[in-house]
């Protein structure tokens, strides 16, 4: 058993007990009519709740309510995180109901999603929350029965004392346990004793979703609520000059029109304060349709902005960022990126003597890859509800990182953080886009000005054309083989607009004697940010495609080739900072080789493999495809994952399936292009997304079995899909794909 100090938990648990007696949960219900609670099939709700800490309370009838601290956006944390608490509490999952916690940084740690870290970082805290409460229940029983707490065991929500034959349900002891001092230290379960973790449990919100209950920010309704939409500059590089709203104001249902500045020019922004267009025009009315119509009647003049700087506090690091002027186009981006190939750039890592090795090579392979900007295109467009009065600011909506937004909101509203209440609704997709909360600021400022509750909605067009896009990237790879086809040198030179995707310490660093990793950036006024598996979504997509080509040039099986390199990295690593575990990496390759029947090829089925490590997890995939009139049909994707302990296997499988479909979709179709600063795609008729008929016919996901603490799941399963697809397409067509999206180069689109 692991013992764990509860000091951090103790402080926060005590604090929340005080807070919650004031009715912490009530606000939410009034917005989404009783949807905060999930009515999983429990016999009956209790008459009285006893709160043992911020994460859980127990009813007199033994029903347990567990808080899900993090926002839910489809990764199923609302089910998986409470499962971890329930495990250590030692209750039957059937008797648990789950509630979405509000933003409360005093009570909960790390209330955000991003970086596939929710389960990884929540793991200890959640276990501790369950274990602490279990310990308090044991103490309570010990006092009641006059025995030592050490002698009391638990199972399925019941306390037992073997010697006296006494037993009691948690519900019976809950009231006494609530008065017990929070223990200083608690014991965690042995992993082999897990009963809930590792079992597949259904999405606690499943029933609400399939019956259309209001769960999303878009669904918020409040008596007297007004609807708001924005009009933003039509091009990056432009700003507002003047507004003539005479005709728009005369439209039916329109209440007000004004400009909103979500960010003051001199405000020192926090990391996630990226804001697409700091000044927009807001149109407010009695219904979405009315507002949409009035928007068309606005006469707005825009003008180019000049170069300027913004200051930023990136987690303690003070930065001054220059925003260049100008109207940028994709064609220029591509030629600027191509020029970088021959320029002197920053060396990030160098092992051995790569120059010399390339000189002595028997064979050199050099390839350049590019990938475009991508829009997130969450199915639920950006939106937020706000009701700001002089006394308080009430906000609710879908947001990945509410705790990182509070401070900026307080500064902008001129209100102390204590008066701000941010409620989290289910996210209709996040993928990184909802890490940036300028829409929350806009909603709050609009509500403050119109003195009414307001729901701000971005139209699909607004959502797509005011993106915080995935950056555009390019990388040139070179590999040197000697006479015996050994990889003797490897060189990667990668960069992007505006950030570099390079991960210099990732494989094959550590496996090659002579290694050089370089990077560059090109500045831009396009706003960019996190997108599912940031940077890895490019590096994993291209490096694994390049290695496939190198393996072929060396006359080796692509899995065998990688395993040989990993073996080298395990036995005799080059350099010190290699950030992956070669054994676990090789493990997923071996697993995928076995499960995909890699060694038994089928005529007419073309296969590609890929393996990548990011967000602390290892993933390998094999894609099988056939060609139907030149059009790729994906028959099967076999996926092997090592993410440590899998809390909820079916939910993890679902997430992996989604990431694979997303990877294939973006590899084939994903692209946002620009002309003179204008995003060239604005809705799903011109931004091509993967659809039913293009999805793989089957996906099977296999997990490495180990008892390592859980790591990321939602992101690491994404990058390998792009490269496995490129490699399979090559097998099918004999053509290598270097530039995403591939569909641009596939002759017939069905």
């Amino acid at each position, binding site marked *: 058993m692991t013992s764990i100090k509860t000091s951090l938990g103790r402080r926060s648990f005590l604090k929340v007990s005080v807070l919650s007696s004031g009715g912490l949960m009530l606000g939410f219900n009034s917005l989404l009519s009783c949807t905060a609670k999930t009515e999983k099939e429990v016999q009956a709700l209790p008459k009285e709740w006893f709160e043992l800490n911020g994460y859980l309370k127990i009813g007199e009838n033994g029903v347990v309510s567990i808080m899900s601290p993090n926002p839910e956006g489809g990764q199923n944390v609302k089910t998986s995180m409470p499962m971890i608490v329930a495990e250590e509490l030692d209750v039957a999952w059937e008797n648990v109901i789950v509630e979405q916690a509000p933003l409360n940084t005093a009570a909960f740690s790390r209330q955000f999603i991003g970086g596939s870290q929710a389960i990884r970082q929540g793991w200890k805290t959640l276990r501790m929350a369950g274990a602490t409460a279990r310990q308090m229940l044991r103490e309570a029983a010990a006092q009641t029965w006059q025995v030592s707490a050490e002698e009391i065991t638990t199972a399925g929500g019941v306390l037992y004392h073997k010697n006296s034959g006494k037993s009691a349900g948690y519900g019976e002891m809950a009231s006494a346990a609530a008065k017990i001092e929070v223990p200083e230290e608690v014991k965690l379960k042995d992993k082999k004793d897990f009963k809930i973790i590792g079992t597949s449990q259904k999405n606690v919100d499943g029933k609400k979703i399939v019956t259309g209950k209001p769960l999303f920010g878009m669904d918020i309704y409040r008596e007297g609520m007004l609807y708001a939409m924005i009009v933003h500059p039509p091009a990056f590089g432009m700003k507002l000059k003047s507004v003539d709203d005479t005709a728009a104001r005369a439209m039916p249902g329109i209440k007000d029109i004004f400009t909103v500045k979500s960010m003051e020019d001199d405000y020192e922004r926090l990391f996630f304060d990226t804001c697409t267009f700091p000044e927009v025009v807001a149109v407010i009315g009695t219904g979405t349709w009315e507002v949409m119509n009035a928007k068309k009647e606005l006469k707005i003049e825009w003008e180019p902005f000049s170069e300027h700087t913004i200051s930023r506090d990136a987690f303690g690091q003070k930065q001054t960022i220059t925003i260049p002027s100008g109207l940028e186009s994709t064609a220029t981006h591509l030629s600027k990126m191509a020029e970088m190939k021959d320029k002197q750039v920053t060396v990030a890592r160098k092992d051995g003597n790569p120059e010399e090795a390339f000189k002595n090579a028997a064979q050199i392979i050099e390839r350049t890859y590019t990938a475009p900007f991508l829009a997130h295109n969450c199915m639920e467009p950006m939106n937020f509800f706000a009701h700001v009065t002089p006394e308080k600011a009430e906000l609710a909506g879908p947001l990945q990182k509410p705790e990182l937004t509070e401070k900026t909101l307080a500064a902008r509203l001129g209100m102390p953080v204590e008066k701000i209440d941010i409620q989290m609704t289910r996210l209709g997709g996040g993928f990184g886009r909802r890490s940036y909360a300028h829409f929350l600021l806009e909603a709050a400022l609009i509500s403050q000005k119109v003195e009414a509750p307001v729901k701000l909605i971005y139209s699909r067009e607004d959502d797509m054309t005011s993106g915080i896009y995935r950056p555009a990237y390019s990388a040139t790879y070179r590999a040197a083989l000697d006479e015996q086809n050994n990889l003797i040198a490897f060189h990667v030179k990668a960069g992007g607009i505006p950030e570099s995707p390079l991960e210099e310490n990732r494989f094959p660093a550590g496996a090659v004697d002579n290694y050089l990793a370089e990077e560059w950036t090109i500045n831009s006024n396009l706003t960019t940010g996190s997108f599912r598996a940031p940077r890895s979504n490019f590096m994993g997509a291209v490096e694994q495609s390049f290695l496939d080509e190198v393996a072929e040039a060396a006359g080796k099986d692509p899995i065998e080739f990688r395993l040989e390199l990993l073996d080298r990295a395990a036995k005799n690593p080059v350099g010190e900072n290699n950030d992956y575990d070669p054994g676990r990496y090789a493990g997923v390759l071996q697993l995928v080789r076995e499960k995909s029947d890699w060694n038994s090829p089928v005529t007419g089925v073309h296969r590609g493999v890929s393996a990548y490590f990011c967000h602390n997890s290892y993933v390998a995939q094999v894609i099988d495809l056939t060609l139907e009139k030149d059009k790729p049909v994906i028959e099967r994707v076999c996926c092997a994952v090592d993410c440590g302990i899998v809390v909820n296997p079916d939910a993890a499988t679902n997430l992996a399936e989604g990431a694979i479909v997303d990877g294939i979709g973006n590899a084939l179709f994903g692209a946002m292009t620009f002309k003179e600063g204008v995003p060239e795609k604005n809705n*799903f008729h011109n931004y091509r997304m993967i659809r039913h008929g293009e999805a793989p016919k089957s996906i099977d996901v296999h997990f490495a079995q180990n008892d390592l603490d859980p790591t990321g799941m939602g992101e690491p399963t994404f990058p390998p899909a792009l490269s496995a697809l490129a490699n399979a397409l090559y097998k099918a067509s004999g053509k290598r794909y270097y530039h995403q999206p591939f569909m641009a180069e596939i002759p017939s689109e069905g």
Partner: protein
Amino acid sequence: MATINLSINGNKYVVDADPKTPLLWVLRDKLNLSGTKYGCGIAQCGACTILLDGDAVRSCQLAVSVVENKKITTIEGLSENGDHPIQKAWLEYDVPQCGYCQAGQIMSAVSLLERNPKPTDEEIDSAMNGNLCRCGAYVRIKAAIKSASNSI
């Protein structure tokens, strides 16, 4: 503005609305039936799918005046207790990820099985192709449709 009589999920509603307002916004903003979702507003994503006299249609493209006195079914009215065979199959396969597209997916699937109780894979693809799922739950959606098809 006009007074329009609507029959939704077996209930009668009288709304005051501009006759050109898409049914989607009448459902969402005026009647607080928010199960029907907005995704694109141009008939490209299927999030707003409802049944009109039993057929799946995109409510973002349907002027409210046109549907007067027709039988409208939204996700909220698909079944009394969330136990339509499609809804049950969706739960059995734990289909949803974020869930935002799912009301539309379900309504399209219901209409498909009503027309064609035993669809082939290709028929499922073509009936469902207008319903985008950004989370990529396509494999499970198809599995759930097939399972429901066998249970009908």
